[in-house]
């Protein structure tokens, strides 16, 4: 099948005989090797969690994150894919958000932020013969019309709204954990734990540590300000320890039940 699609996959602007855009599909494939990103929504806020792939003692301490970016006071996003492509798109979304604020003197609604960046991505699948952006985002934010919202975007320029979702490496494993553990009525703390749990499952590390995990929340406080708070390493470690302890207990239980008489 891969050999058959050869002739129609060199250019983004060409459909294959089966009606597919192969370049776009390959771009989507690139996301599946990227560090996992998780987003969970509840009544009080949104939990965001991402796995940092590049962790080395030789790396200079970073002023910015490679996964979490602020787009505006009320919108934050997680990146899965090529960081360099993501930087272009994040700059565009920041400009778009400020242009709206300048024009209407009120914050840009979250869906419109997402839509504008998706339209920008879509142009690279239809015009110019340039390759698509190899980036998928999880946009999380709050606005006056629809409250807390979580959106996923992909290189095709498509987007969808979610209550909870996982993108990137091993996202299927993550999604199955969401099916069992996630509920709309969860508290923010419960969602924090689920997010870390999902990351522990999707990471290919046997010794998970807080420096590989970026855990943050978006919450609108009593004054009406939207705060994006990144949890400290110690707090993340606490969640990791709790989850690992629970897993040990589960394992012992299952071992005990399959023992001989």
């Amino acid at each position, binding site marked *: 099948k891969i050999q058959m699609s050869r002739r129609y996959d060199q250019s983004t602007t060409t459909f294959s005989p089966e009606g597919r855009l192969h370049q776009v599909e390959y771009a989507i494939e690139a996301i599946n090797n990227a560090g996992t990103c998780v987003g969970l929504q509840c009544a009080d806020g949104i939990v965001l969690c991402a796995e940092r792939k590049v962790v080395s003692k030789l790396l200079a301490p970073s002023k910015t994150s490679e996964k979490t970016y*602020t787009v*505006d006071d009320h919108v934050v996003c997680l990146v899965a894919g090529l960081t360099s492509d993501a930087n272009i798109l994040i*700059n565009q979304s*920041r*400009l778009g958000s400020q*242009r709206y*604020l*300048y024009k209407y*003197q009120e914050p840009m609604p979250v869906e419109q932020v997402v839509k504008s960046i998706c339209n920008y991505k879509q142009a690279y699948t239809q015009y110019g013969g340039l390759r698509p952006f190899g980036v998928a985002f999880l946009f999380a934010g709050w606005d006056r019309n629809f409250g807390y919202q979580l959106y996923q975007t992909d290189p095709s320029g498509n987007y969808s709204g979610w209550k909870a979702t996982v993108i990137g490496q091993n996202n299927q494993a993550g999604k199955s954990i969401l099916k069992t553990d996630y509920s709309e009525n969860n508290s923010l703390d419960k969602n924090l734990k689920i997010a870390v749990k999902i990351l522990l499952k999707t990471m290919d590390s046997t010794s998970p540590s807080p420096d590989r995990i970026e855990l943050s929340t978006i919450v609108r406080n009593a004054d009406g300000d939207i705060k994006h708070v990144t949890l400290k390493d110690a707090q993340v470690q606490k969640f990791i320890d709790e989850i690992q302890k629970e897993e040990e207990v589960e394992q012992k239980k299952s071992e005990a039940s399959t023992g001989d008489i």
Partner: protein
Amino acid sequence: NKTSFRYYYYINYLYLPNMSILEYNGGAVIAMAGKNCVGICSDLRLGAQFQTVSRDFKKVFKVTDKLYVGLTGLATDILSVDQLLQFRCNMYKLRENREIKPEAFSALLSTLLYEKRFGPWFCEPVVAGLTADNKPFLSGMDLIGAPVFGSDFVVSGTCTANLHGMCESLYRPDMEPEELFEVLAQCLLAAVDRDAISGWGALVHIITPEGVITKKLRSRQD
């Protein structure tokens, strides 16, 4: 008849050769340096030539906790330039992950104004802030962005001659925040009393490393 002729006269008033668009709405702003603090204040009048329209039109805007900008001139351009500055400073904060410093902000404002060299924003701004070492920073500009960096005070508005005179008389270096407030308030109030299109109250901000003290002054309401 006589009344309609007088009305027609006022409409054409602006088109007299000695009338400037910067004097249509009226206003005054002073910024002054103290000891590890700066003060910036403006009057509150908004008028349409001689008719006062609002006595609550603030001309000083916050950029960061340690940086304020005051704008005089055409009211619509005051608002537009403030909104543009918010755009630019928001982008700056997102890209650089820190708040903008007064020196960089002053340069930003200067280039923003010069971009419109041949169709300018009709406003003359004043920048007041504290540098990273909490030293006072003052700068003023004309409508096309030519900056002047003051070590003592900078003024702008329809009564700059009055403002300069008052500041020269009352200013002394290294004032503490309370003294600075008194001097600043007296300079502005006295100056705008001799200007028909400025006044109707004043708003003073004293920026210190600990925070900003804001006071509203009630002056002659005429």
